[in-house]
């Protein structure tokens, strides 16, 4: 039950990432659409209000033209510009020179019929007969801001509602799309976990039985074969432990930190891997100063095991592995094939092996790195091709 929960929650992590990405993109796009619609709505509302005002303004203009006509004909008697309390107006001649103006906003745009400017509404008419020489009559009224407020309110309210609805829909959609992926990941995870679990019993049986075998009664030829079986079993066992660590142990919440005698741990593990090292005729050189460190035993073992098995795996025949332990420093130097300097930064990446055809370090070093990070232990890797690799841990 517990492990199942852990599985789903770890799944959710990778899921959340793609979910967030999808949703951001989706909401961004929806926002753009909503903004465009808002602009469109605002414009159409604007045009509607202008159309309503135009009717009124053209009535004013007609009245003005009639009055201008009268002024034109009786100019000698009274050269008075016709005024109206409901609006302001101005007349311009054919070349846009002002003849007379009562406008508050004097800047006039003659190529628009109706427009807003500085809180006023301007309406421009062209006269058929140029009374008083006027070709253009401009009527100015106060611009009514009420509609803008109402429109903006509409836009904000409807925009927000639309965004929320779209976001909910997006969430639903993405869940729908992610379900198959989620299922297959779940299946894969469960499969790996079950398989790993299933490996435990036979592997233990093999290792225990090899130990129990009485080599004294064996023929030399069989002894050699048993030796090889032992090596193979231990290699599988190391991989098995990494796998269990990844699928079962890694997310165990609590560390069981105990005081570890690092020197002894190293000695133990060297002994365990000795048979592997012997197969390549590798010799260990140990310089171990007694050192203690508080750490989870299983995790410490994972670190040492992985570093040792790498040092053996990538060593040459008849090579050496030097291990130096000081109170705050552990150094493991092998005389192996080395790593290209450019690749060193990537050796801790999980599944590097799967990305690059030349092969790499698999999950082992990625496990090492996570554990070291957890205990704030620094790791340094120096390497030269065909010379070897030096791994230094400091704390």
């Amino acid at each position, binding site marked *: 039950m517990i492990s199942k929960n852990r599985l789903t929650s770890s799944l959710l992590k990778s899921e959340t990432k793609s979910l967030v990405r999808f949703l951001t993109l989706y909401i961004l796009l929806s926002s753009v659409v909503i903004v465009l619609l808002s602009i469109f709505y605002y414009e159409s509302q604007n045009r509607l209000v202008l159309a309503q005002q135009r009717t009124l303004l053209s009535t004013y203009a007609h009245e003005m033209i009639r009055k201008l006509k009268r*002024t*034109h004909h009786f100019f000698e008697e009274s050269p008075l510009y016709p005024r109206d309390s409901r609006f302001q107006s101005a007349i311009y001649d054919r070349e846009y*020179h002002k003849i007379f103006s009562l406008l508050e906003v004097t800047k006039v745009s003659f190529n628009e019929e109706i427009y807003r400017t500085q809180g006023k509404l301007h309406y421009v008419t062209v006269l058929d007969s*140029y009374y008083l*020489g006027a*070709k253009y009559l401009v009527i100015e009224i106060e611009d009514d801001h009420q509609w803008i407020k109402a429109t903006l309110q509409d836009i904000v309210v409807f925009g927000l509602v639309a965004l929320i609805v779209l976001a909910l829909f997006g969430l639903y959609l993405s869940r729908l799309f992610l379900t198959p992926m989620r299922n297959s990941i779940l299946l894969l995870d469960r499969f790996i976990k079950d398989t790993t679990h299933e490996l435990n019993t036979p592997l233990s049986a093999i290792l225990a039985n090899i130990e129990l075998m009485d080599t004294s009664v064996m023929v030399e030829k069989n002894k050699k074969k048993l030796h090889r079986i032992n090596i193979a079993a231990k290699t599988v066992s190391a991989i098995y432990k990494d796998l269990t660590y990844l699928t079962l142990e890694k997310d165990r919440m609590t560390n069981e930190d105990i005081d570890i005698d690092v020197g002894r741990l190293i000695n133990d593990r060297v002994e365990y891997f000795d048979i592997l090292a012997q197969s390549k005729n590798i010799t260990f050189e140990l310089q171990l100063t007694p050192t203690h460190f508080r750490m989870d035993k299983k995790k410490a073992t994972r670190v040492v095991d992985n570093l040792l098995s790498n040092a053996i795996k990538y060593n040459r025949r008849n090579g050496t592995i030097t291990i130096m332990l000081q109170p705050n420093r552990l150094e493991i130097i092998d005389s192996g094939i080395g790593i290209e300097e450019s690749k060193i930064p990537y050796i801790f990446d999980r599944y590097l092996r799967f990305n690059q055809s030349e092969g790499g370090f698999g999950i082992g070093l990625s496990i090492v790195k996570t554990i070291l990070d957890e205990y704030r232990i620094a790791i340094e890797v120096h390497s030269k091709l065909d010379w070897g690799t030096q791994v230094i841990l400091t704390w």
Partner: protein
Amino acid sequence: MKSLYQRHYCSIKVWIKILFVVMLWLSSAKAHDAFEKHCVACHAKLPASLERIFFNYLLVYSSQKDTKEAIIYYLKSPDKDISLMSDLFLDTFGVKKATKLDDKTLKKAIDIYWEKYNVMDKIR
């Protein structure tokens, strides 16, 4: 002690100055006169005032430049077809003869005509 010559010289200078001022006054008076002299006298005999005619031109040509150009054009080559006067008026008084004034004087007369009647300066 001033010589006789010097005194004469001084008075000549004064006379030249006076002459110059008089000439200037005459020429400007002549310019002011161009319209009165060449247009008003004859038009006074007609029933349509020059002001009415001016407003008729405004009604069609609107701007200062166009109005002036149109009047000058008509005065140089009057034609029944482009006249702004009514047919009745033209039948009664006939189409006027082309002006014999030189361009400069004509222009001066029209400028004064515009100054005298334009709306911009008078409308309140």
